[in-house]
């Protein structure tokens, strides 16, 4: 596609439920990043993929968060047992590789009620 696509654009879920957020990067971009942006804050790094592997997952806040990129393209961020504090905009970005600029998606706004 022409840009980074994230679905859904909005997700409302109940506390304790499981959610999946999808990111479809620019075709050919090997690097993929997930960030989380809480209200009034800048984006915070969660995880970075180079190809299919998670090269750096140091930003994941706890083991309820997990992400995959099985074929080196689309990535899914999975959150188990959601909590109200997980409410934020989840941003995905892709790039041609380390050292290249990012292209961000428009984000998924997650609201946990």
């Amino acid at each position: 596609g022409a840009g980074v696509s994230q679905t859904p654009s909005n997700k409302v879920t109940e506390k304790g439920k499981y959610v999946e957020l999808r990111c479809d990067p620019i075709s050919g971009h090997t690097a993929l990043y997930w960030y989380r942006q809480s209200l009034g804050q800048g984006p915070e790094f969660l995880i970075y993929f180079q190809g299919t592997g998670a090269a750096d997952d140091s930003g994941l806040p706890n083991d309820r968060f997990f992400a995959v990129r099985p074929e080196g393209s689309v990535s899914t961020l999975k959150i188990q047992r959601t909590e109200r504090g997980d409410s934020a905009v989840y941003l995905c970005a892709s790039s041609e590789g380390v050292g290249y600029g990012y292209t961000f998606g428009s984000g998924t706004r997650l609201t946990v009620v």
Partner: protein
Amino acid sequence: AQRVTQPEKLLSVFKGAPVELKCNYSYSGSPELFWYVQYSRQRLQLLLRHISRESIKGFTADLNKGETSFHLKKPFAQEEDSAMYYCALKGSGANNLFFGTGTRLTVIP
């Protein structure tokens, strides 16, 4: 530890006036600094990076290692510059960006 500080949450200037958005950083090595911008209802996008030493949309930013600053400047603000601006740092050897909390710039007609 790395830190990016944008001291102004909100900044208003009149059209045609100079604008400076402040960014200070804390990092022990040699970082790479960026400015990202988010216009209303648009996605976050790269404005400029210090290694490029370029001017984008009339904006420039110089990395001052002595003052650990990377302030964004434009001599004459335009209404279309109204947006949210984020300063970001990438550590040497790092894969990810560390963002400041952002400054919302409003250019008053």
